[in-house]
Protein backbone atom coordinates (compact mmCIF):
# COMPACT_ATOMS: atom_id res chain seq x y z
CA UNK A 1 0.00 0.00 0.00
CA UNK A 2 2.69 2.49 1.08
CA UNK A 3 4.88 1.35 -1.80
CA UNK A 4 2.15 1.85 -4.35
CA UNK A 5 1.34 5.24 -2.91
CA UNK A 6 5.01 6.13 -3.22
CA UNK A 7 4.81 5.00 -6.84
CA UNK A 8 1.91 7.36 -7.46
CA UNK A 9 3.80 10.23 -5.87
CA UNK A 10 6.77 9.33 -8.07
CA UNK A 11 4.57 9.48 -11.15
CA UNK A 12 3.24 12.87 -10.10
CA UNK A 13 6.80 14.13 -9.68
CA UNK A 14 7.73 12.87 -13.14
CA UNK A 15 4.67 14.59 -14.61
CA UNK A 16 5.49 17.87 -12.84
CA UNK A 17 9.04 17.69 -14.13
CA UNK A 18 7.67 17.02 -17.62
CA UNK A 19 5.39 20.05 -17.41
CA UNK A 20 8.28 22.28 -16.32
CA UNK A 21 10.32 21.04 -19.25
CA UNK A 22 7.54 21.55 -21.79
CA UNK A 23 6.89 25.09 -20.54
CA UNK A 24 10.62 25.84 -20.64
CA UNK A 25 10.79 24.89 -24.30
CA UNK A 26 7.56 26.64 -25.26
CA UNK A 27 8.94 29.87 -23.80
CA UNK A 28 11.92 29.51 -26.13
CA UNK A 29 9.88 28.56 -29.22
CA UNK A 30 10.07 32.08 -30.60
CA UNK A 31 13.87 31.92 -30.54
CA UNK A 32 14.54 34.70 -28.07
CA UNK A 33 12.62 34.73 -24.79
CA UNK A 34 14.04 38.16 -23.99
CA UNK A 35 11.60 39.65 -26.48
CA UNK A 36 8.73 38.25 -24.44
CA UNK A 37 9.78 40.15 -21.35
CA UNK A 38 10.54 43.64 -22.52
CA UNK A 39 7.95 46.37 -22.74
CA UNK A 40 7.19 47.46 -26.26
CA UNK A 41 9.50 50.07 -27.70
CA UNK A 42 12.66 48.87 -25.96
CA UNK A 43 15.89 49.67 -27.80
CA UNK A 44 18.20 47.01 -29.16
CA UNK A 45 20.76 47.84 -26.53
CA UNK A 46 18.25 47.54 -23.70
CA UNK A 47 17.23 44.17 -25.05
CA UNK A 48 20.82 42.96 -25.28
CA UNK A 49 21.54 44.08 -21.73
CA UNK A 50 18.46 42.35 -20.48
CA UNK A 51 19.29 39.20 -22.37
CA UNK A 52 22.62 39.07 -20.62
CA UNK A 53 21.21 39.99 -17.24
CA UNK A 54 18.62 37.20 -17.46
CA UNK A 55 21.17 34.71 -18.75
CA UNK A 56 19.39 34.05 -22.03
CA UNK A 57 22.73 34.26 -23.85
CA UNK A 58 24.00 31.15 -22.05
CA UNK A 59 23.77 27.63 -23.54
CA UNK A 60 20.27 26.13 -23.44
CA UNK A 61 21.28 23.40 -21.00
CA UNK A 62 22.69 25.91 -18.54
CA UNK A 63 19.52 27.98 -18.80
CA UNK A 64 17.46 24.85 -18.18
CA UNK A 65 19.38 23.92 -15.05
CA UNK A 66 19.18 27.49 -13.77
CA UNK A 67 15.41 27.51 -14.47
CA UNK A 68 14.88 24.29 -12.53
CA UNK A 69 17.08 25.55 -9.70
CA UNK A 70 15.04 28.76 -9.44
CA UNK A 71 11.78 26.87 -9.43
CA UNK A 72 13.10 24.45 -6.82
CA UNK A 73 13.57 27.49 -4.58
CA UNK A 74 10.04 28.56 -5.57
CA UNK A 75 11.61 31.59 -7.23
CA UNK A 76 9.32 32.50 -10.12
CA UNK A 77 11.33 35.53 -11.14
CA UNK A 78 10.67 39.24 -11.29
CA UNK A 79 8.15 40.95 -13.52
CA UNK A 80 9.93 43.63 -15.52
CA UNK A 81 6.62 45.24 -16.41
CA UNK A 82 5.27 45.57 -12.90
CA UNK A 83 8.67 45.67 -11.18
CA UNK A 84 7.51 43.17 -8.58
CA UNK A 85 7.95 39.51 -7.74
CA UNK A 86 5.92 37.23 -10.01
CA UNK A 87 4.94 34.96 -7.14
CA UNK A 88 3.36 37.87 -5.28
CA UNK A 89 1.51 39.12 -8.36
CA UNK A 90 -0.02 35.71 -9.02
CA UNK A 91 -0.69 34.89 -5.35
CA UNK A 92 -2.72 38.07 -4.99
CA UNK A 93 -5.15 36.85 -7.67
CA UNK A 94 -5.40 33.21 -6.62
CA UNK A 95 -8.13 33.68 -3.98
CA UNK A 96 -10.46 35.13 -6.63
CA UNK A 97 -9.97 32.20 -8.95
CA UNK A 98 -10.35 29.74 -6.09
CA UNK A 99 -13.62 31.43 -5.15
CA UNK A 100 -14.81 31.24 -8.76
CA UNK A 101 -13.76 27.61 -9.17
CA UNK A 102 -15.47 26.73 -5.89
CA UNK A 103 -18.65 28.43 -7.02
CA UNK A 104 -18.51 26.63 -10.35
CA UNK A 105 -17.82 23.31 -8.64
CA UNK A 106 -20.84 23.84 -6.38
CA UNK A 107 -23.00 24.55 -9.43
CA UNK A 108 -21.60 21.51 -11.21
CA UNK A 109 -21.92 19.12 -8.28
CA UNK A 110 -25.22 20.51 -7.08
CA UNK A 111 -26.91 20.10 -10.45
CA UNK A 112 -24.80 17.49 -12.23
CA UNK A 113 -24.90 14.72 -9.63
CA UNK A 114 -28.65 14.79 -8.90
CA UNK A 115 -29.28 15.03 -12.66
CA UNK A 116 -27.05 12.01 -13.31
CA UNK A 117 -28.68 9.98 -10.55
CA UNK A 118 -32.15 10.91 -11.82
CA UNK A 119 -31.24 9.97 -15.40
CA UNK A 120 -30.07 6.55 -14.24
CA UNK A 121 -32.87 5.80 -11.78
CA UNK A 122 -35.68 7.00 -14.08
CA UNK A 123 -34.12 5.57 -17.18
CA UNK A 124 -36.35 5.77 -20.25
CA UNK A 125 -38.67 8.36 -18.71
CA UNK A 126 -39.56 11.79 -20.06
CA UNK A 127 -37.48 13.25 -17.24
CA UNK A 128 -34.41 11.41 -18.48
CA UNK A 129 -34.87 12.78 -21.98
CA UNK A 130 -35.32 16.32 -20.70
CA UNK A 131 -32.23 16.05 -18.52
CA UNK A 132 -30.23 14.53 -21.38
CA UNK A 133 -31.08 17.58 -23.49
CA UNK A 134 -30.07 19.86 -20.63
CA UNK A 135 -26.77 18.03 -20.19
CA UNK A 136 -26.02 18.13 -23.90
CA UNK A 137 -26.73 21.86 -23.94
CA UNK A 138 -24.34 22.43 -21.05
CA UNK A 139 -21.71 20.45 -22.89
CA UNK A 140 -22.02 22.40 -26.12
CA UNK A 141 -22.35 25.94 -24.73
CA UNK A 142 -19.26 28.06 -25.23
CA UNK A 143 -18.60 29.70 -21.86
CA UNK A 144 -18.02 33.13 -23.37
CA UNK A 145 -21.39 33.00 -25.10
CA UNK A 146 -23.36 31.68 -22.15
CA UNK A 147 -21.57 34.26 -20.02
CA UNK A 148 -22.66 37.10 -22.30
CA UNK A 149 -26.22 35.72 -22.51
CA UNK A 150 -26.37 35.61 -18.71
CA UNK A 151 -25.17 39.21 -18.57
CA UNK A 152 -27.79 40.20 -21.15
CA UNK A 153 -30.59 38.49 -19.24
CA UNK A 154 -29.82 38.93 -15.54
CA UNK A 155 -27.55 41.95 -15.72
CA UNK A 156 -28.99 44.11 -18.48
CA UNK A 157 -32.61 43.07 -19.00
CA UNK A 158 -33.60 42.12 -15.47
CA UNK A 159 -30.93 43.98 -13.54
CA UNK A 160 -30.79 41.33 -10.82
CA UNK A 161 -27.06 40.74 -10.76
CA UNK A 162 -23.97 42.86 -11.34
CA UNK A 163 -22.60 42.44 -14.86
CA UNK A 164 -18.92 42.42 -13.91
CA UNK A 165 -16.38 42.84 -11.17
CA UNK A 166 -15.94 41.18 -7.81
CA UNK A 167 -17.59 43.50 -5.36
CA UNK A 168 -19.98 41.11 -3.66
CA UNK A 169 -20.99 37.51 -3.41
CA UNK A 170 -23.69 38.20 -6.02
CA UNK A 171 -20.96 39.00 -8.52
CA UNK A 172 -19.90 35.39 -8.22
CA UNK A 173 -23.24 33.91 -9.31
CA UNK A 174 -23.13 34.38 -13.07
CA UNK A 175 -19.46 33.52 -13.58
CA UNK A 176 -19.94 30.37 -11.51
CA UNK A 177 -22.86 29.25 -13.65
CA UNK A 178 -21.05 30.00 -16.91
CA UNK A 179 -17.89 28.22 -15.78
CA UNK A 180 -19.71 25.33 -14.11
CA UNK A 181 -21.98 24.39 -17.03
CA UNK A 182 -19.49 22.16 -18.87
CA UNK A 183 -18.32 20.48 -15.67
CA UNK A 184 -21.95 19.99 -14.68
CA UNK A 185 -22.49 18.05 -17.91
CA UNK A 186 -19.43 15.93 -17.28
CA UNK A 187 -20.61 15.09 -13.77
CA UNK A 188 -24.11 14.28 -14.95
CA UNK A 189 -22.82 11.93 -17.66
CA UNK A 190 -20.32 10.21 -15.39
CA UNK A 191 -22.78 9.91 -12.52
CA UNK A 192 -25.40 8.43 -14.82
CA UNK A 193 -23.00 5.80 -16.11
CA UNK A 194 -21.71 4.98 -12.63
CA UNK A 195 -25.20 4.69 -11.14
CA UNK A 196 -26.50 2.58 -14.04
CA UNK A 197 -23.50 0.34 -13.59
CA UNK A 198 -24.20 -0.12 -9.91
CA UNK A 199 -27.97 -0.50 -10.36
CA UNK A 200 -27.41 -3.56 -12.53
CA UNK A 201 -25.47 -5.32 -9.81
CA UNK A 202 -26.81 -8.19 -7.73
CA UNK A 203 -26.38 -6.41 -4.45
CA UNK A 204 -29.10 -3.97 -5.43
CA UNK A 205 -31.55 -6.80 -6.10
CA UNK A 206 -30.40 -8.45 -2.89
CA UNK A 207 -30.99 -5.25 -0.91
CA UNK A 208 -34.46 -4.96 -2.40
CA UNK A 209 -35.09 -8.61 -1.59
CA UNK A 210 -34.39 -7.67 2.03
CA UNK A 211 -37.25 -5.21 1.81
CA UNK A 212 -35.48 -1.98 0.92
CA UNK A 213 -37.32 0.32 -1.47
CA UNK A 214 -35.48 1.21 -4.65
CA UNK A 215 -35.00 4.67 -3.18
CA UNK A 216 -33.48 3.27 0.01
CA UNK A 217 -31.27 0.88 -1.96
CA UNK A 218 -30.01 3.80 -4.06
CA UNK A 219 -29.40 6.01 -1.05
CA UNK A 220 -27.81 3.36 1.16
CA UNK A 221 -25.79 1.35 -1.32
CA UNK A 222 -25.73 2.58 -4.91
CA UNK A 223 -24.62 6.16 -4.34
CA UNK A 224 -21.60 5.26 -2.24
CA UNK A 225 -20.40 2.72 -4.78
CA UNK A 226 -21.08 5.06 -7.68
CA UNK A 227 -19.19 7.84 -5.91
CA UNK A 228 -15.85 6.13 -6.48
CA UNK A 229 -15.50 6.90 -10.20
CA UNK A 230 -17.19 10.27 -9.78
CA UNK A 231 -14.66 11.41 -7.17
CA UNK A 232 -11.85 10.87 -9.64
CA UNK A 233 -13.62 13.00 -12.20
CA UNK A 234 -14.26 15.69 -9.61
CA UNK A 235 -10.56 15.99 -8.86
CA UNK A 236 -9.68 16.24 -12.53
CA UNK A 237 -12.42 18.76 -13.16
CA UNK A 238 -10.90 21.16 -10.64
CA UNK A 239 -7.95 21.51 -13.01
CA UNK A 240 -10.28 22.10 -15.94
CA UNK A 241 -12.18 24.75 -14.00
CA UNK A 242 -8.97 26.64 -13.24
CA UNK A 243 -8.08 26.55 -16.93
CA UNK A 244 -11.59 27.52 -18.03
CA UNK A 245 -11.32 30.54 -15.77
CA UNK A 246 -9.14 32.19 -18.43
CA UNK A 247 -12.19 32.87 -20.60
CA UNK A 248 -14.88 33.32 -17.95
CA UNK A 249 -12.81 35.79 -15.96
CA UNK A 250 -12.26 37.82 -19.10
CA UNK A 251 -15.99 37.91 -19.87
CA UNK A 252 -16.98 38.99 -16.36
CA UNK A 253 -13.90 41.09 -15.56
CA UNK A 254 -13.28 38.83 -12.59
CA UNK A 255 -9.84 39.63 -11.14
CA UNK A 256 -8.47 36.09 -10.90
CA UNK A 257 -5.43 34.45 -12.45
CA UNK A 258 -7.26 33.82 -15.75
CA UNK A 259 -7.81 37.50 -16.33
CA UNK A 260 -4.26 38.12 -15.11
CA UNK A 261 -2.91 35.69 -17.72
CA UNK A 262 -4.66 37.50 -20.57
CA UNK A 263 -3.68 40.93 -19.22
CA UNK A 264 -0.09 39.76 -18.87
CA UNK A 265 0.01 38.52 -22.46
CA UNK A 266 -1.21 41.91 -23.63
CA UNK A 267 1.37 43.61 -21.42
CA UNK A 268 4.12 41.21 -22.60
CA UNK A 269 4.68 40.05 -19.05
CA UNK A 270 5.41 36.42 -19.86
CA UNK A 271 6.99 35.37 -16.60
CA UNK A 272 3.57 35.89 -15.06
CA UNK A 273 1.92 33.81 -17.78
CA UNK A 274 4.51 31.10 -17.27
CA UNK A 275 3.91 31.12 -13.52
CA UNK A 276 0.16 30.76 -14.03
CA UNK A 277 0.56 27.81 -16.40
CA UNK A 278 2.94 26.13 -13.97
CA UNK A 279 0.60 26.80 -11.05
CA UNK A 280 -2.51 25.42 -12.73
CA UNK A 281 -0.66 22.36 -14.06
CA UNK A 282 0.79 21.61 -10.64
CA UNK A 283 -2.65 21.89 -9.07
CA UNK A 284 -3.96 19.59 -11.79
CA UNK A 285 -1.31 16.96 -11.09
CA UNK A 286 -1.85 17.36 -7.36
CA UNK A 287 -5.59 16.84 -7.75
CA UNK A 288 -4.89 13.70 -9.77
CA UNK A 289 -2.81 12.35 -6.93
CA UNK A 290 -5.45 13.36 -4.43
CA UNK A 291 -8.07 11.48 -6.44
CA UNK A 292 -5.99 8.31 -6.23
CA UNK A 293 -5.67 8.69 -2.49
CA UNK A 294 -9.37 9.47 -2.11
CA UNK A 295 -10.08 6.32 -4.09
CA UNK A 296 -8.22 4.22 -1.57
CA UNK A 297 -9.94 5.95 1.32
CA UNK A 298 -13.48 5.44 -0.01
CA UNK A 299 -12.94 1.96 -1.35
CA UNK A 300 -11.24 -0.40 1.07
CA UNK A 301 -10.82 -2.97 -1.72
CA UNK A 302 -8.55 -0.81 -3.79
CA UNK A 303 -4.91 -1.28 -3.11
CA UNK A 304 -3.82 1.38 -5.55
CA UNK A 305 -3.05 -0.98 -8.39
CA UNK A 306 -0.22 -0.03 -10.71
Amino acid at each position, binding site marked *: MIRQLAGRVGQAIVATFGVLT*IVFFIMRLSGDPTLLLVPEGATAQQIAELRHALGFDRPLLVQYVAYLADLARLDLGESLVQRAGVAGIVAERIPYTVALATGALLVALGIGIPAGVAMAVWRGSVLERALAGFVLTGQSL*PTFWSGILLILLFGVALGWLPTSGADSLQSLVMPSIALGALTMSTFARMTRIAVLDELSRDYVTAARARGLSLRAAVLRHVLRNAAIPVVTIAALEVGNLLAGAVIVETVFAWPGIGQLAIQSIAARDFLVVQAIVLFVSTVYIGMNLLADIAYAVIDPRIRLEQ
Partner: protein
Amino acid sequence: MSGRLSPGIIVILALLAGFVFAAAGADLLAHNDPLRQSLLMRLRPPGTSTATTSYLLGTDDLGRDLLARILYGARASLMVAILSVSVSLLVGAMLGLLAGWFRGWTAILVMRFVDTMLSIPAILLAVLTVAVLGPGFLTLVLVLGLTRWPRYTRVAYAQTLQVVTLPYIRAAEMAGCGPVRILLRHILPNIAGPLMVVATSEFGLMILFEAGLSFLGLGVQPPYPSWGSIMAAGRQYVQRAWWLTVFPGAALFVLVLCVNLFGDWLRDRVDPQSRSR
Protein backbone atom coordinates in the same frame (compact mmCIF):
# COMPACT_ATOMS: atom_id res chain seq x y z
CA MET B 1 -30.68 -1.86 -37.80
CA SER B 2 -27.51 -1.06 -39.67
CA GLY B 3 -27.70 1.03 -42.76
CA ARG B 4 -30.86 2.83 -41.77
CA LEU B 5 -30.62 6.33 -40.36
CA SER B 6 -32.98 7.66 -37.73
CA PRO B 7 -34.74 11.00 -38.42
CA GLY B 8 -32.69 12.59 -35.65
CA ILE B 9 -29.35 11.81 -37.22
CA ILE B 10 -30.62 12.96 -40.63
CA VAL B 11 -31.45 16.37 -39.15
CA ILE B 12 -28.00 16.52 -37.55
CA LEU B 13 -26.24 15.56 -40.77
CA ALA B 14 -28.34 18.09 -42.72
CA LEU B 15 -27.39 20.86 -40.27
CA LEU B 16 -23.73 19.90 -40.46
CA ALA B 17 -23.94 19.90 -44.26
CA GLY B 18 -25.54 23.35 -44.00
CA PHE B 19 -22.56 24.65 -42.03
CA VAL B 20 -20.12 23.20 -44.54
CA PHE B 21 -22.15 24.71 -47.37
CA ALA B 22 -22.22 28.12 -45.66
CA ALA B 23 -18.47 28.00 -45.12
CA ALA B 24 -17.63 26.84 -48.62
CA GLY B 25 -20.12 29.10 -50.37
CA ALA B 26 -19.58 32.20 -48.25
CA ASP B 27 -18.45 34.12 -51.34
CA LEU B 28 -21.76 33.41 -53.09
CA LEU B 29 -24.08 33.55 -50.11
CA ALA B 30 -22.90 36.83 -48.66
CA HIS B 31 -23.99 39.76 -50.74
CA ASN B 32 -21.89 42.19 -48.73
CA ASP B 33 -18.12 42.27 -48.31
CA PRO B 34 -17.40 41.10 -44.74
CA LEU B 35 -14.50 43.54 -44.48
CA ARG B 36 -16.11 46.67 -45.94
CA GLN B 37 -16.60 49.23 -43.21
CA SER B 38 -19.17 51.95 -43.18
CA LEU B 39 -19.15 54.42 -40.33
CA LEU B 40 -22.62 55.59 -41.30
CA MET B 41 -24.03 52.11 -40.85
CA ARG B 42 -22.57 51.30 -37.40
CA LEU B 43 -24.48 48.98 -35.05
CA ARG B 44 -27.64 48.81 -37.16
CA PRO B 45 -30.17 46.23 -35.91
CA PRO B 46 -31.12 43.12 -37.88
CA GLY B 47 -33.35 43.74 -40.89
CA THR B 48 -31.90 47.15 -41.71
CA SER B 49 -31.91 47.91 -45.41
CA THR B 50 -30.66 50.85 -47.45
CA ALA B 51 -31.18 51.89 -51.04
CA THR B 52 -28.31 49.75 -52.21
CA THR B 53 -28.20 46.75 -49.87
CA SER B 54 -29.72 45.09 -46.82
CA TYR B 55 -28.32 43.80 -43.54
CA LEU B 56 -30.37 40.76 -42.54
CA LEU B 57 -28.56 40.28 -39.21
CA GLY B 58 -27.56 43.92 -38.71
CA THR B 59 -24.10 45.47 -38.65
CA ASP B 60 -21.16 45.56 -36.25
CA ASP B 61 -19.36 48.43 -34.57
CA LEU B 62 -17.51 49.26 -37.79
CA GLY B 63 -20.62 49.04 -39.96
CA ARG B 64 -19.74 45.66 -41.46
CA ASP B 65 -22.48 43.21 -42.47
CA LEU B 66 -22.91 40.69 -39.62
CA LEU B 67 -24.39 37.97 -41.84
CA ALA B 68 -21.41 38.09 -44.17
CA ARG B 69 -19.02 38.01 -41.22
CA ILE B 70 -20.80 35.02 -39.70
CA LEU B 71 -20.66 33.12 -43.00
CA TYR B 72 -16.95 33.80 -43.38
CA GLY B 73 -16.54 33.04 -39.68
CA ALA B 74 -17.91 29.56 -40.33
CA ARG B 75 -15.13 29.12 -42.84
CA ALA B 76 -12.47 30.10 -40.28
CA SER B 77 -14.03 27.86 -37.66
CA LEU B 78 -14.27 24.77 -39.84
CA MET B 79 -10.88 25.28 -41.51
CA VAL B 80 -9.08 25.57 -38.19
CA ALA B 81 -10.95 22.57 -36.78
CA ILE B 82 -10.40 20.34 -39.83
CA LEU B 83 -6.72 21.17 -40.16
CA SER B 84 -5.87 20.96 -36.49
CA VAL B 85 -7.77 17.69 -36.03
CA SER B 86 -5.87 16.31 -39.03
CA VAL B 87 -2.54 17.33 -37.54
CA SER B 88 -3.28 15.89 -34.11
CA LEU B 89 -4.84 12.73 -35.54
CA LEU B 90 -1.78 12.14 -37.69
CA VAL B 91 0.74 12.81 -34.91
CA GLY B 92 -1.27 11.04 -32.22
CA ALA B 93 -2.10 7.95 -34.25
CA MET B 94 1.48 7.53 -35.47
CA LEU B 95 2.91 7.76 -31.96
CA GLY B 96 0.28 5.36 -30.64
CA LEU B 97 0.91 2.86 -33.42
CA LEU B 98 4.65 2.99 -32.86
CA ALA B 99 4.30 2.62 -29.10
CA GLY B 100 1.94 -0.31 -29.55
CA TRP B 101 4.18 -1.96 -32.13
CA PHE B 102 7.55 -1.61 -30.43
CA ARG B 103 6.28 -1.66 -26.86
CA GLY B 104 9.11 -1.68 -24.27
CA TRP B 105 10.96 1.59 -23.82
CA THR B 106 9.34 3.27 -26.80
CA ALA B 107 5.94 2.74 -25.26
CA ILE B 108 7.04 3.90 -21.82
CA LEU B 109 8.57 7.09 -23.21
CA VAL B 110 5.65 7.90 -25.48
CA MET B 111 3.00 7.18 -22.88
CA ARG B 112 4.82 9.20 -20.20
CA PHE B 113 4.96 12.09 -22.65
CA VAL B 114 1.23 11.64 -23.20
CA ASP B 115 0.57 11.72 -19.44
CA THR B 116 2.63 14.89 -19.12
CA MET B 117 0.88 16.65 -21.99
CA LEU B 118 -2.45 15.76 -20.45
CA SER B 119 -1.32 17.30 -17.15
CA ILE B 120 -1.35 20.76 -18.70
CA PRO B 121 -4.88 21.99 -19.26
CA ALA B 122 -5.21 22.27 -23.03
CA ILE B 123 -6.59 25.78 -23.21
CA LEU B 124 -3.73 27.15 -21.09
CA LEU B 125 -1.14 25.32 -23.14
CA ALA B 126 -2.65 26.79 -26.29
CA VAL B 127 -2.89 30.29 -24.79
CA LEU B 128 0.74 30.22 -23.72
CA THR B 129 2.03 28.85 -27.01
CA VAL B 130 0.02 31.18 -29.23
CA ALA B 131 1.06 34.10 -27.08
CA VAL B 132 4.74 33.17 -27.38
CA LEU B 133 4.64 32.60 -31.12
CA GLY B 134 2.29 35.47 -31.91
CA PRO B 135 -1.23 34.89 -33.16
CA GLY B 136 -2.12 33.90 -36.70
CA PHE B 137 -4.05 31.32 -38.66
CA LEU B 138 -1.16 28.90 -39.17
CA THR B 139 0.04 29.24 -35.56
CA LEU B 140 -3.47 28.49 -34.39
CA VAL B 141 -3.71 25.32 -36.46
CA LEU B 142 -0.28 24.08 -35.44
CA VAL B 143 -0.69 24.89 -31.77
CA LEU B 144 -4.08 23.21 -31.51
CA GLY B 145 -2.87 20.28 -33.59
CA LEU B 146 0.34 19.79 -31.67
CA THR B 147 -1.21 20.11 -28.22
CA ARG B 148 -4.25 17.89 -28.73
CA TRP B 149 -2.66 14.63 -29.98
CA PRO B 150 -2.33 12.69 -26.70
CA ARG B 151 -5.90 11.38 -26.65
CA TYR B 152 -5.42 9.78 -30.07
CA THR B 153 -2.19 8.25 -28.89
CA ARG B 154 -3.86 6.67 -25.89
CA VAL B 155 -6.57 5.11 -28.02
CA ALA B 156 -4.24 4.06 -30.85
CA TYR B 157 -1.81 2.52 -28.37
CA ALA B 158 -4.46 0.52 -26.49
CA GLN B 159 -6.09 -0.66 -29.72
CA THR B 160 -2.79 -1.60 -31.35
CA LEU B 161 -1.81 -3.69 -28.34
CA GLN B 162 -5.05 -5.62 -28.81
CA VAL B 163 -4.84 -5.97 -32.56
CA VAL B 164 -1.22 -7.12 -32.80
CA THR B 165 -2.05 -10.27 -30.87
CA LEU B 166 -4.68 -11.32 -33.42
CA PRO B 167 -3.73 -14.35 -35.52
CA TYR B 168 -4.03 -12.63 -38.89
CA ILE B 169 -1.32 -10.14 -37.98
CA ARG B 170 1.02 -13.07 -37.27
CA ALA B 171 -0.11 -14.60 -40.53
CA ALA B 172 0.69 -11.40 -42.41
CA GLU B 173 4.06 -11.28 -40.71
CA MET B 174 4.84 -14.84 -41.73
CA ALA B 175 3.70 -14.09 -45.25
CA GLY B 176 6.62 -11.66 -45.35
CA CYS B 177 4.89 -8.31 -44.91
CA GLY B 178 7.19 -5.61 -43.55
CA PRO B 179 6.29 -3.76 -40.34
CA VAL B 180 5.32 -0.55 -42.16
CA ARG B 181 2.96 -2.45 -44.43
CA ILE B 182 1.45 -4.35 -41.51
CA LEU B 183 0.99 -1.18 -39.48
CA LEU B 184 -0.62 0.79 -42.28
CA ARG B 185 -2.48 -1.91 -44.17
CA HIS B 186 -3.55 -4.26 -41.41
CA ILE B 187 -3.52 -2.50 -38.06
CA LEU B 188 -4.54 1.05 -38.95
CA PRO B 189 -7.86 0.07 -40.61
CA ASN B 190 -8.71 -1.96 -37.53
CA ILE B 191 -8.23 0.89 -35.12
CA ALA B 192 -9.75 3.57 -37.38
CA GLY B 193 -13.22 3.39 -35.80
CA PRO B 194 -12.23 4.30 -32.23
CA LEU B 195 -9.87 6.97 -33.60
CA MET B 196 -12.73 8.54 -35.55
CA VAL B 197 -14.82 8.66 -32.38
CA VAL B 198 -12.02 10.58 -30.64
CA ALA B 199 -11.59 12.79 -33.71
CA THR B 200 -15.26 13.78 -33.68
CA SER B 201 -15.27 14.76 -30.02
CA GLU B 202 -11.98 16.62 -30.57
CA PHE B 203 -13.51 18.37 -33.59
CA GLY B 204 -16.17 19.93 -31.36
CA LEU B 205 -13.50 20.95 -28.86
CA MET B 206 -11.33 22.49 -31.58
CA ILE B 207 -14.24 24.62 -32.77
CA LEU B 208 -14.72 25.83 -29.20
CA PHE B 209 -10.98 26.41 -28.74
CA GLU B 210 -10.69 28.40 -31.95
CA ALA B 211 -13.63 30.57 -30.94
CA GLY B 212 -12.29 30.88 -27.40
CA LEU B 213 -8.80 31.87 -28.47
CA SER B 214 -10.19 34.30 -31.05
CA PHE B 215 -12.43 35.72 -28.32
CA LEU B 216 -9.31 36.33 -26.23
CA GLY B 217 -7.61 37.96 -29.21
CA LEU B 218 -5.19 35.05 -29.69
CA GLY B 219 -6.85 33.40 -32.68
CA VAL B 220 -7.90 34.66 -36.07
CA GLN B 221 -6.74 38.27 -36.26
CA PRO B 222 -8.80 41.31 -37.23
CA PRO B 223 -10.07 42.37 -39.64
CA TYR B 224 -10.73 38.76 -40.67
CA PRO B 225 -13.92 37.45 -39.12
CA SER B 226 -14.18 34.61 -36.62
CA TRP B 227 -17.17 33.91 -34.43
CA GLY B 228 -15.01 34.35 -31.35
CA SER B 229 -13.60 37.73 -32.40
CA ILE B 230 -17.04 39.03 -33.50
CA MET B 231 -18.33 38.21 -30.03
CA ALA B 232 -15.29 39.79 -28.36
CA ALA B 233 -16.01 43.03 -30.20
CA GLY B 234 -19.74 42.71 -29.55
CA ARG B 235 -19.21 42.23 -25.82
CA GLN B 236 -18.53 45.94 -25.38
CA TYR B 237 -21.81 46.79 -27.08
CA VAL B 238 -23.87 44.11 -25.42
CA GLN B 239 -26.36 46.64 -24.07
CA ARG B 240 -26.84 48.45 -27.41
CA ALA B 241 -26.34 45.68 -29.96
CA TRP B 242 -27.34 42.25 -28.64
CA TRP B 243 -27.22 40.75 -32.14
CA LEU B 244 -23.44 40.98 -32.26
CA THR B 245 -23.10 38.34 -29.56
CA VAL B 246 -26.33 36.40 -29.91
CA PHE B 247 -26.07 35.38 -33.58
CA PRO B 248 -22.45 34.21 -33.82
CA GLY B 249 -22.81 32.49 -30.44
CA ALA B 250 -25.93 30.70 -31.58
CA ALA B 251 -24.16 29.53 -34.75
CA LEU B 252 -21.26 28.26 -32.65
CA PHE B 253 -23.60 26.54 -30.17
CA VAL B 254 -25.64 24.78 -32.85
CA LEU B 255 -22.53 23.64 -34.71
CA VAL B 256 -20.89 22.23 -31.58
CA LEU B 257 -24.17 20.62 -30.52
CA CYS B 258 -24.47 18.89 -33.90
CA VAL B 259 -20.88 17.70 -33.77
CA ASN B 260 -21.40 16.32 -30.25
CA LEU B 261 -24.62 14.56 -31.24
CA PHE B 262 -22.94 13.15 -34.31
CA GLY B 263 -20.09 11.98 -32.08
CA ASP B 264 -22.50 10.19 -29.73
CA TRP B 265 -24.16 8.52 -32.68
CA LEU B 266 -20.82 7.47 -34.13
CA ARG B 267 -19.68 6.06 -30.80
CA ASP B 268 -22.79 3.93 -30.53
CA ARG B 269 -22.05 2.51 -33.96
CA VAL B 270 -18.37 1.84 -33.43
CA ASP B 271 -18.78 0.56 -29.89
CA PRO B 272 -22.26 -0.94 -29.55
CA GLN B 273 -21.54 -1.82 -25.94
CA SER B 274 -21.69 1.81 -25.00
CA ARG B 275 -25.15 2.13 -26.57
CA SER B 276 -26.94 1.25 -23.36
CA ARG B 277 -24.93 3.88 -21.56
